């Protein structure tokens, strides 16, 4: 029973320009966004559309050129550079595409060290890390090194690490890109469970359309701006989200299908019945 609390994250008119003069790149243009506690927001968009730039600004990893970011009443865009590491440590949980675990540390220590950075004693940090990992089903993997874990397990360790300091907001950039579809989906369900059970806000950036169904809200970023999603379709072969106007298309049994490239279209036409189910995902 989620009551309507104030938004966890409130972003107003956020812009980022890289470089200056002729070579300047306007990566994000006047983006506004609110995320409520327990809400899962998925930001999709083609490569180069500014997703990573936006996420980095939201996570206090990158200073915006313009705009205001407010997290739990704290105005990040007004804080001095020196305070940001501590804000990242306590208020954000980061999940990366390639996991970024410390290769010399066990699963347990990878999680515990982040709690220690936030000032917890070694023993307490390890106890908290252990509890979290067990909750995420990694009780038997506590003392494994990252290289001994599967991709899905590594991402779960990374999620435990993101949760260990009890942040209000989880930020994940392409969390499923290095996982097969089974583990990718499992990771997404885990993020959903965390959001719903613990009331955490989760912001995911991805161009993997297969994870749309776990999100409460899907936003489409293109050329640094949020756009309507209506003109989008899912390539039934590879699962990528494509824009109808720009995509290659084909007709089958009276319906239109859209593809990211000619290869997918040909594969589809070789045996359309194999991909028939994907039509259910098509957005009108």
């Amino acid at each position: 029973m989620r009551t309507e609390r104030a938004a966890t994250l409130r972003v107003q008119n956020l812009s980022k320009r890289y470089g200056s003069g002729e070579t300047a790149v306007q990566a994000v243009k006047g983006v506004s966004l609110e995320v409520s506690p327990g809400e899962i927001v998925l930001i999709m968009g083609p490569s180069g559309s500014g997703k990573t730039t936006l996420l980095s600004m939201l996570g206090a990893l990158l200073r915006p050129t313009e705009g205001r970011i407010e997290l739990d009443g704290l105005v990040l865009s007004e804080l001095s550079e020196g305070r940001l590491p501590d804000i990242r440590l306590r208020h954000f949980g980061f999940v990366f595409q390639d996991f970024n675990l410390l290769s010399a540390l066990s699963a347990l220590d990878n999680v515990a060290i982040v709690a220690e950075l936030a000032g917890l004693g070694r023993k307490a940090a390890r106890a908290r890390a252990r509890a979290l990992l067990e909750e995420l089903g990694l009780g038997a993997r506590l003392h494994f090194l990252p290289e001994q874990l599967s991709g899905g397990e590594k991402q779960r360790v990374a999620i435990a690490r993101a949760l260990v300091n009890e942040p209000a907001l989880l930020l994940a950039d392409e969390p499923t890109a290095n996982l097969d579809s089974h583990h990718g989906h499992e990771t997404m369900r885990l993020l959903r469970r965390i959001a719903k059970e613990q009331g955490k806000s989760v912001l995911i950036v991805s161009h993997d359309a297969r994870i749309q169904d776990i999100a409460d809200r899907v936003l489409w970023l293109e050329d640094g701006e949020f756009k309507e999603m209506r003109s989008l379709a899912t390539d039934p072969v590879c699962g990528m989200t494509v824009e109808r106007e720009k995509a290659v298309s084909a007709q089958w049994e009276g319906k239109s299908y859209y593809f990211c490239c000619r290869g997918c279209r040909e594969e589809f036409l070789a045996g359309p019945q194999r991909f028939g189910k994907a039509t259910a995902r098509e957005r009108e």
Partner: protein
Amino acid sequence: MGYLAWRNLTQSKTRFLLSVGGVALALALVLVLDAILAGFEGPLAAPIERSGADVWVSQKGVRNLHMVLSTLPEGVVEVVAGVPGVASVTPMLYTTQMLRGPRGSRSSYVFGLPADAQAGKPAGAWPPGAGEVILDSGLGQVLGLEAGDTARVFGRNFRVAGFATGLSNPLNGVSFLRLEDFARLRRSRDTVSFVLVRVGPGRSAEEVARRIEEEVEGVSALSRAAFARRERAVVRDMGADAINIMNLAGLLIGLAVMALVMYTATLSRRAEYGVLKALGASSGHLYRVVLAQALYSVGLGLGLAVALTLVLPLVLSALGLNLPLQLTWASLLKAGGMALVVAGAASALPMRQIAGLDPARVYRGGAR
């Protein structure tokens, strides 16, 4: 955070061995060269420092032992004895000779002293009888002589009466004859080389030396400390310069190797430090981790280097080589201190880049 440093250091066995081994070899190079120098310089003035004489009186202008000729009329001995503050005087004859034995030959100081010498005599087997010689034990080894054997000195046979310890240096052995034997064989009946003085209780050697130079014609008089200092300076000028240059080169090479090892150790973890920074580690945290890693490397490397330096003489002597090595605290402190500074700086150097790194980079395929 210490455990991250430790795991980073030890995670890969090969890298750990290369890292600590590299530091150890670098430090061992420094320590061994130092030990060679100390082994060489340490005993240089031993015959003076262990003489028990407070003041050495010599022919005017002679201010050390090595390669000098000092001749004083015998009468000077009594005159020196009369100077206020002088408690005892011992006449000494001195020259440098090639001594031969069954195993080899070696240049040696030869001292002639009266049986009742108050100073200058070695501890242990004293006095030698007529026709007997006392050898420093190091010299005895080189020559291959044992007690009762015959040594050739001044072209005559002398019976080895016993051994003195701790007087030889890498340049010279030391041997003792009776003053009378020395005088007879060298036809120096009415002269002495040095007068060894002991001063009375409460007297300063420097003060008495000055009085002697004032009151006795044609002599120089130096306190034991001053005489030993001159001796070292002379010998160092003759040979130790080369060792000193080697030593400096060794130190620079050792430190450079170590700096490279430590620099690489941090650099190879750059991406992971970048991740920690993105997660919220402060620069202070990161510096602490790499400095701890440098500390562990230097600690382990220094321990290993000391072990190597202590084992080396055993190995050398098993190979039949005689290289006196003397590991000193000063050298340990110097090597350890410099290693810490250099290793710390070298491992922290890449951190400057990481500290200046845009933390958003980890979201762009890591900080690589």
